């Protein structure tokens, strides 16, 4: 589409490179303030490091990263080396489709050693072809009418087996099992039902980003689900425990004694108002938050400490009292805005949806967008230290007063400058796991924290190494539109200082506590078939909901947590509409002379008793209120989910901390009108990125309002 690649105008107020989260906010704000904006991305998707992919795109992305060399070559200083710098950002990328025995039948393994050995010296293409034929021959007897996806699965597996550098694990290289083929086939068939997040995050219901989404009106584009619960791993008991994180939870909790409940509530009441009670915490200002909590509030008990941690942890393991209190306050203010939860989870992939929403606003106000637009080099006026223009792959020179970009879009020279100034390295180890059932029973959308020093990373070895940083886990369910209803995604991530350990080493200890990894004896035990059968709930009462029993897991969790938009806070109209719908249904039912039971006749085992509400479509507000919190705080008797797919990678998030470190004096500073956006951090929320975007905007457009409300759409009603 050459036409779209050429631009009528080539001079702009601002050019933004990369549609990462921060840039998209800046782009929206600039366009909204009347600036002309050109926003380019070399990728064919929005979001950059916060992008979201279906199965096929994720595998494509992984293959691309794995096959691109991150080693610098003799490029000229002004050259943009996007692909190389992206590849450099991701280390130890590995993924695996696991061998899962289904229905008790033994899995058949196709050995590949011989065929690989035979074609050792053949060209890669021939080797792949040979392996593919070998697998197809073995597999055909049970698959005589192969689907498109089945063929694609075999082809992919053959490719990975033949080219190990593309990122499949060693165990996979020498053999492929029937179940792996079937699994990959199923994933490929459902590719569009998945939205894998590269940097999973959540929003505080009353945090800066949510407030911005509301005040600017941009939130209207988005739908959300509420995070249901937060769990914390306790090393002493070796248990993952659901934390009471709201007043209602505290009331119901059996883990806290009466006195502990009071102490906890007292602390939380203080935290909401901590800014007005400086006398209580000023002596602890720079002390660790945990110390303040324990000495000033007497929350010494293990459970209480864990609760405060579950509420106040925002990604920083060394938070000071000031930081900790700020974070607890945002949490508490967020509680109850939309329901009994402080976090919102956007649907269809977190980062990408938000990025697109901001891009849309930018476009409404005239911002020009081009994806998959390759860039060649930057032109900088060295004398004046001014960035002048960027040249794209068609040779067009695009000029602007300001350039805002993420690090991958820097020229070689600029990148070296940043690199030299970065003394402390920083990475985020990531893992994406797809499982066959929830790791938290009925709780489907939840986060879990493994505190620092709670996990042994090298079991059986000495000296013992423990996790230096909190490992965060976010479980997404079908309701968030990021996976099919019978699948769950676990995002696992942790901060990391170096590349001495790979992502798998950093995270595996935590993963083992939550899922069964086939072939890993240290992970949870696979559930016995009888256990699975017993836990599979009876068919749903209403016919439209019922589906054939799932092969690998329990019935879908479905939509018991409704989606919502940000204006549902006060919008009773929608609730009314839903009541109307529910009533219509009631009347219809009554026309058929079916009495409406006040309770479900066959309640699912362990289901929270929710009289009345189970008879009709759930209402938004109600269902928020009835978030499972109240009745299901226990994690006992949960059946271990099986890991079907895992992908590990370690993402670079380094950023200079010190303004002018030794050694960088001789380097040419970056042009004044160039703004480099920081890499996405490892925290659970978007707040730092939101604040950064605001700061950039305020620097570029001093005195202008940051994303004022967008006017209402065509509205002729008057009132």
């Amino acid at each position, binding site marked *: 589409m050459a036409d779209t690649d050429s631009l009528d105008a080539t001079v702009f107020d601002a050019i933004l490179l990369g549609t990462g989260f921060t840039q998209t906010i800046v782009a929206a704000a600039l366009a909204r303030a009347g600036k002309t904006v050109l926003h380019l991305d070399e990728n064919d998707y929005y979001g950059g490091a916060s992008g979201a992919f279906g199965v096929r795109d994720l595998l494509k992305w992984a293959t691309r990263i794995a096959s691109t060399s991150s080693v610098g070559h003799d490029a000229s200083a002004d050259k943009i080396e996007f692909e190389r710098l992206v590849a450099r950002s991701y280390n130890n990328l590995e993924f695996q489709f696991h061998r899962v025995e289904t229905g008790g039948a033994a899995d058949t393994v196709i050995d590949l050693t011989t065929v690989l050995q035979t074609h050792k010296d053949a060209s890669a293409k021939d080797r792949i072809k040979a392996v593919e034929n070998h697998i197809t021959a073995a597999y055909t007897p049970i698959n005589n009418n192969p689907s498109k996806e089945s063929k694609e699965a075999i082809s992919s597996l053959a490719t990975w087996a033949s080219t190990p550098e593309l990122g499949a694990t060693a165990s996979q290289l020498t053999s492929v099992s029937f179940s792996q083929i079937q699994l990959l086939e199923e994933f490929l068939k459902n590719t569009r039902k998945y939205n894998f997040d590269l940097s999973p995050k959540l929003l505080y219901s009353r945090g800066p980003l949510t407030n911005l989404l509301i005040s600017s009106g941009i939130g209207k584009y988005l739908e959300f689900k509420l995070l249901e619960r937060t769990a914390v791993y306790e090393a002493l008991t070796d248990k993952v425990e659901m934390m009471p994180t709201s007043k209602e939870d505290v*009331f119901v909790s059996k883990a806290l004694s009466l006195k502990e409940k009071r102490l906890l509530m007292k602390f939380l009441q203080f935290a909401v108002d901590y800014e007005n009670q400086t006398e209580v915490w000023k002596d602890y200002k720079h002390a660790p938050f945990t110390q303040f909590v324990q000495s000033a509030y007497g929350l010494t008990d293990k459970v209480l400490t864990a609760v405060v941690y579950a509420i106040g942890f925002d990604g920083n393991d060394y938070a000071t009292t000031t930081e900790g209190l700020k974070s607890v306050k945002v949490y508490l203010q967020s509680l109850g805005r939309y329901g*009994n939860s402080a976090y919102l989870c956007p649907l269809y992939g977190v980062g990408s949806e938000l990025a697109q929403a901001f891009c849309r606003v930018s476009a*409404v106000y005239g911002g020009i967008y081009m994806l998959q637009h390759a860039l060649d080099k930057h032109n900088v006026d060295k004398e004046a230290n001014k960035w002048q223009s960027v040249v794209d792959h068609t040779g067009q020179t695009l000029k602007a007063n300001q350039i805002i970009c993420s690090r991958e879009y820097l020229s070689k020279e600029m990148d070296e400058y940043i690199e030299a100034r970065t003394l402390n390295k920083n990475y985020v180890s990531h893992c994406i796991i797809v499982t066959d059932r929830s790791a938290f029973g009925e709780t489907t959308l939840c986060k879990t924290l493994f505190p620092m020093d709670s996990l042994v990373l090298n079991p059986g070895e000495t000296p013992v190494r423990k996790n230096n940083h909190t490992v965060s886990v976010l479980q997404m369910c079908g309701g968030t539109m990021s996976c099919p209803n019978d699948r769950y995604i676990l995002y696992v991530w942790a901060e990391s200082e170096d590349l001495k350990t790979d992502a798998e080493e950093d995270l595996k200890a935590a993963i083992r506590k939550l899922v069964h990894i086939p072939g890993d004896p240290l992970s949870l035990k696979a559930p016995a078939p009888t256990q699975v059968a017993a836990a599979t709930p009876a068919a749903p009462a209403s016919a439209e909901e019922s589906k054939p029993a799932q092969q690998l897991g329990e019935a879908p969790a479905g939509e018991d947590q409704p989606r919502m938009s940000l204006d549902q806070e006060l919008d009773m109209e929608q609730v009314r509409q839903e009541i109307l719908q529910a009533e219509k249904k009631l009347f219809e039912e009554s026309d058929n002379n079916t009495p409406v039971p006040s309770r479900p006749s066959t309640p699912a085992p362990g289901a*929270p008793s929710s*009289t009345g509400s189970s008879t009709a479509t759930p209402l938004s507000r109600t269902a928020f209120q*009835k978030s499972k919190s*109240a009745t299901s705080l226990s994690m006992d008797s949960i059946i271990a989910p099986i890991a079907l797919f895992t992908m590990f990678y370690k993402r670079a998030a380094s950023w200079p901390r010190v303004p002018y470190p030794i050694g960088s004096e001789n380097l040419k500073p970056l042009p004044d009108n160039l703004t480099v956006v920081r890499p996405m951090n490892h925290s659970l929320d978007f707040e730092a990125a939101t604040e950064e975007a605001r700061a950039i905007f305020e620097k570029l457009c001093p005195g202008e309002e940051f994303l004022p409300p967008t006017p209402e759409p065509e509205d002729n009603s008057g009132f």
Partner: protein
Amino acid sequence: MESRHGRKKEQAESPEALKTREEKETVLVREYLALKDTLKEIVESNKRDNDALKVTTALLRKSPDYYTIWNVRRTILKEGFLDNASDDETANKIYTGELEFVQENLKLNPKSYWMWNHRRWCLESMSQPRWDKELAMVGKFLEMDARNFHGWDYRRYIIRQLDLKDKEAKDKVLERAQSEFDFTITKIHQNFSNYSAWHNRSTLLGKLAEDMSTEEREAIVDNEFDLVKNAIYTDPEDQSAWLYELWLIGREERSISILGAHVISFHPLEIVVAFDETVKMRNPFTVSTRVDHVAIPLEGEWKATGSDSALGSVWIFQQAPGAVYGPTVEIVIFSDDVCAVRAGSKLPAAVCYELETLNQNLDEISGRLGRLVIGQNLMYDVTKRIGPVTGPDGTLETQAVHPKHRVTSLTESGSLDDRIALLEREISAVRELVELEPDCKWPIQILSTLLSELRKTVSIHSTQAKVIDDECIELQEKLITIDPLRQERYEDRRTQLVFDRETLSIIQDSKRFPEIEYSAKQPTNLDLSMRGLTHIPISSYLLHLHTLNLDSNSITSTRFLRNLLNVRRVNLSNNLIEHLEGMQHAPSLEFLTLENNMIAKWEDVVAGFVFWGEGKLARTGGHVKVLLGNNPVVVNEGGEYVLEKRWEDVGKVGVEIQWQSEELRLAEEALLAAEDETGAVGNMVVDGTRRVSATVVEFDAGLAH
């Protein structure tokens, strides 16, 4: 730039738009007023057709709280449509339409009484109302707002209707109660700050407990205590949970005690019966005299002291002129003869008093009537009741051999110890919370209530009672400081507690614990000065006093004086009294000190004595001295006396006002002090900086002619 993505460029409301909006609003108001006029016409013209109905629909959409329109609508429906409906189906269609109409409006205004009311009318008028559907509907409304009491109330109404339908099938009713009970816990778990849910829970629990075994009841009560305790500890500021806790514990119902019966005059015969609280007399107490072993009724009249003679804690019997009594007079008070003004208390059994008339000693204490028989099988022969003394239900009024004591509102036990154990357990839990939350008013209030409950289980003279009283008083003082908005309430409660403590010498436990009666030896003087009292809680306690010192309190009323039949001197200086009342039955009053109060008008002084002269009981010659120094009525800013009016004859009472010098006043006080062992009467403190102006007013019944 053109509009994109269906979005318009922003624009402020232009003056034209504003004008259009205002015009539209004016039109709306006009429409409403026109509709109202049309309705008026309809009502007057008796139109009962579809057009008329439409007008009500339009009006009710705009203003659903206009209840007259709902009434008009029902009339139109009934007379214009329902009465002509050929069959049930037609009628049902109309009602269903109405239900849908209400439902639609309820969504906009879920707290309108008239809409819920209209719904009830429809359902009750329908031949086959679908209550199950209603239950689902109201469930939806409670999901919208779990604290909408209209919703809860309506829900209970539906359940009642359903239960009525199933009144033969008890298990169905119970099952429904259980299901409703579970519903409350769902709502409470969502947000326990919900009066309606807790309240509904308590009523359902009572219903469910009917069929439970003792063990089941105890288990469920434990569970409820656990639940509510969790709520209380999570949020001690939440009143709804505390009220549920109080309901669970329940209040020990106090019985009415008769403090004593005394003869105060033999010619004519006058007998006083004092209760420990205000009671209403339902039947006159039976007074009879015995002639040859036959009891003959003695004619006379019972009257309570005070202006409202149907209510009182002190009752006086006056023999009718010409009536004759023999050597013994008996008074029988049956338990149904009185009822307490305060809900819950009653006289546990009949009481009989006997008066020996041969020894006519009028000393107050020895004037006490012998308490003869209490609630036992008594042969008694009066015209009204012959045979054994029986209660209103015909049973013998004997005390149960094994009385059941309340443990909680749902459980009882043969032993008082179970109640004590429960209270002690709850007290220690609440006490712990008070330690954690020293400035939270609810735990303190509940602790005080629980302690009062515990005090009901012990003798009033026990050490434990004293310790409890002292703690409760401290708690009230704490409450006054942390919750100044309710200061007066806490002060009244504190007054009661202090009064109880200070009057222990007057009262003792009766043989029938927990009832009380007058101590055998009555003090004649009582000093209650500087106790912070706001009122006299039980004035019948003070029946026998001669002198009473209430100096420097915060008393606002003198009404209590009506029950002080024997009092001669009362010091009420330095209080907050604005006018005098209750003197009618203070026949012995000689000296009343009212210095430094709030009496602003002369009429307010006199009014207290207007009917005093009528009191045939006046035994002092009808002369009383009142000190009124330092009241607004007698001083102005310059310290000059402004009381110039001199009343020669006020009603039937003569009045003499004396201006008395400071020296004279002091001399008088010294005299009084010498006369009185305690020296309690009289304000001995002379304020050095303020001029104390003393004024004596003397009332004299004898002056009236």
